[in-house]
C-alpha cells in the first residue's frame, strides 16, 4: 500500500509491525491500547502469524521471552499499569540479550490512575524498566505515521543490538486517526545473525542456552560491561530528534510525543506574536539526543520543557545542557492534555 489511509495510531502500529516481520504477538487487554490486540487477532492468523491473548501481562512478556529466544520477531503491548507487570520479564529479556518490541500506550498513573493520555512513564521507560543494570532503547512517536514508521525501526534496532526496544506512545496517539502511508519495506533488507537462538540445534552445533544467570560476579560484570558498550554504540549512531524553527530561536520548547504537537502549535502562535520560539523533539528518549539538543539550543536563552507529567524528561534536558541555559517546566498531569494556549502563556512568562 502506498496510498494515504485513515487509521488509528494503535492500528497503524499493528499493521506496520506485521510488515516489519512480527510473527507472534502476546498481549492482554488494557485501555487505551486494546486496538493493537484486536487488530492483530484479526490479521496475524491470516498471514501465518500467531496471536495469543495471555492470562496476564506477566505471562505475555514471558511468552515474548520464549518466542524471542527462538529467534522469532515478536511483540507485546500494554499501557502503564500493565508495563509495570512486565518489568520482571523485561529485565530477564535484557539479561538474556533477546530482541523484542514492547509498546507502552501511556495512561495516567500511579496505580490504576486513569485512562486518559499521559507521559508519566518516562522515568520508568528510560531508567527503571526492571531490576538490574540495563537499558532498553526507547522511541517516542508523535504522529500516527510515526507510530507505523518507528515500529519498523524498533524491530531492526532490537535485532541489531539484541535488546528490547520500547515504543513509548500515549492514549492520544493510540486513539487518534490520521492519514498514514505504509512504506514498502525493502524485501532484502538487513538480515540479522540469529545463531544464538534456542530453536533445536539440529545436531549441527553445541546446544544454545538462553539465560540471564551468572553466579560468578566477575562473569556478570563482564557481561554487563559488554552490554553497556553496545549502549555506547547506540548513543553514537542512533539518536534521533527533530528541530523546528530552532535556528534563530530565543526560546526552545522541548517536548516529545503528543506534547510536541501542541508545542509546535504554541511555537507558531508565539512567532506570530514576535517571540522567537522553536521546538526540539527527541525521538529517541533512550539514548537521549544530547548533541542534537545542544545544537538546537545554540541561540536559545531559555528552554521550556513541556510534558504530560509533573516533569520527568526535564531531568534529561537539564543533564544534557549542563546548566548552561536555564530550563523551565510546564506540564499537565493525570490525563489532562495541555492546551497550546497554556504553553504559550508559560512561554511568555519565561
Amino acid at each position: 500500500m502506498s496510498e494515504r489511509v485513515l487509521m488509528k495510531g494503535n492500528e497503524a502500529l499493528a499493521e506496520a509491525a506485521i510488515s516489519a516481520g512480527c510473527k507472534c504477538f502476546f498481549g492482554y487487554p488494557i485501555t487505551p491500547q486494546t486496538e493493537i490486540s484486536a487488530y492483530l487477532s484479526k490479521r496475524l492468523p491470516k498471514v501465518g502469524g500467531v496471536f495469543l491473548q495471555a492470562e496476564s501481562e506477566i505471562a505475555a512478556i514471558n511468552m515474548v521471552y520464549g518466542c524471542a529466544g527462538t529467534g522469532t520477531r515478536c511483540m507485546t503491548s500494554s499501557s502503564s499499569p500493565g508495563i509495570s507487570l512486565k518489568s520482571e520479564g523485561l529485565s530477564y529479556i535484557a539479561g538474556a540479550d533477546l530482541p523484542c518490541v514492547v509498546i507502552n500506550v501511556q495512561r495516567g498513573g500511579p496505580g490504576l490512575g486513569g485512562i486518559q493520555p499521559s507521559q508519566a512513564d518516562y522515568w520508568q521507560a528510560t531508567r527503571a524498566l526492571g531490576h538490574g543494570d540495563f537499558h532498553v532503547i526507547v522511541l517516542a512517536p508523535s504522529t500516527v505515521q510515526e507510530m507505523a514508521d518507528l515500529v519498523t525501526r524498533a524491530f531492526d534496532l532490537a535485532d541489531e543490538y539484541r535488546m528490547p526496544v520500547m515504543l513509548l506512545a500515549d492514549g492520544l496517539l493510540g486513539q487518534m486517526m490520521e492519514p498514514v502511508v505504509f512504506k514498502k519495506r525493502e524485501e532484502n533488507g538487513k538480515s540479522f545473525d540469529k545463531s544464538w537462538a534456542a530453536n533445536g540445534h539440529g545436531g549441527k552445533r553445541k546446544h544454545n542456552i538462553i539465560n540471564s544467570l551468572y553466579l560468578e560476579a566477575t562473569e556478570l560484570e563482564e557481561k554487563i560491561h559488554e552490554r553497556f558498550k553496545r549502549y555506547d554504540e547506540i548513543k553514537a549512531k542512533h539518536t534521533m530528534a527533530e528541530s523546528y524553527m530552532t535556528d534563530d530561536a530565543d526560546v526552545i520548547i522541548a517536548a516529545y510525543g503528543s506534547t510536541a504537537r501542541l508545542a509546535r502549535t504554541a511555537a507558531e502562535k508565539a512567532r506570530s506574536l514576535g517571540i522567537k520560539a522553536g521546538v526540539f523533539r527527541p525521538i529517541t528518549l533512550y539514548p537521549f539526543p544530547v548533541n542534537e539538543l545542544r545544537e538546537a539550543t545554540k541561540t536559545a536563552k531559555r528552554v521550556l520543557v513541556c510534558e504530560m507529567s509533573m516533569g520527568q524528561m526535564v531531568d534529561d534536558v537539564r543533564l544534557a545542557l549542563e546548566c548552561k541555559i536555564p530550563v523551565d517546566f510546564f506540564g499537565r498531569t493525570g490525563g489532562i492534555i495541555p492546551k497550546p494556549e497554556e504553553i504559550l502563556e508559560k512561554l511568555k512568562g519565561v
Partner: protein
Amino acid sequence: MPDFQRPKSLCDIPTHYCPGCTHGIVHRLVAEIIDELGIENNTVGVCPVGCSVMAYDYFACDMMEASHGRAPAVATGVKRALPDKVVFTYQGDGDLAAIGTAETVHAATRGENITIIFINNTTYGMTGGQMAPTTLPGQVTQTTPYGRNTDTEGFPVRVSEMLATLSGVALAERVAVYDPKSVANAKKAIRKGFDFQLKKQGFSIIEVLSTCPTNWGMTPVAALDRVKNELAAYYPLGVFKEGAVRNFNA
C-alpha cells in the same frame, strides 16, 4: 547386555545436586526418553528458578532459563513460534504450584502442546528448605518451625488432581522415584507425556514425588522411605487424566 552409560542427551559434566537428591534420576529419565525418541536435535527445554535452575547446563538440547514460575509461559512462546519442535519444562513445586500457578493453569487449559516435568519434594530446596505449597500438614520447614499448621498455612495443593479437571489436559499423572519399580513406572509416564506432544494432542504433566534429603534432614535412604510412606499417602500415585484433547493446530 550393553554397559550402563550416560544418555547422549545429558552433558558430561557433574551436576550441583546434593547427594541422594532424586533430580539426577529424573534428569536421566528425561534424557533417556529424548534419546529413545531421537528428538535431541529438535527439542527446547525450559528450566525456571529452583534447584533445577542450572539444568540448562546438563541437558544437551537447546535450553532456556526462565524466571520464577514462568516456564509454562516461556514454553508457550517457544512452542507457538516453533510448533514442530518438542518443548518441555522442568519445574519444582514452589515454582509451578505457588508463584507460577497462573501460568501453569492457563497453559494447561489452553491445551498448550508441551510437556511439564513437575518435581514435588514438599519444600523449597534451593533457598534452604522453606514451606512449599506442597508441604505436608505438620511438616517442619525453615518457615514452619512448629510444623505446617493448616489453620494458618492452609493445605497442600494436589496439582495433578487439580489440572485433571481441565479440558486442555491430555495427561496428568503422578509417579515417584523411590525404588527401581517406581522409577521404571515414572519413565513410562514421562514417555507418554512426550508421545502426546509428538502427536500434537495437548498438554501433559508428570508429577514426580521426589526427595530432598538435605532440607528434610534425612539420609538418602530415609528420604526415599518418606516419599514412599508419607508423600505417596497424601499424594496418591496414578493417572488422573489421560486421552488426546484434540489435534492441536494440526
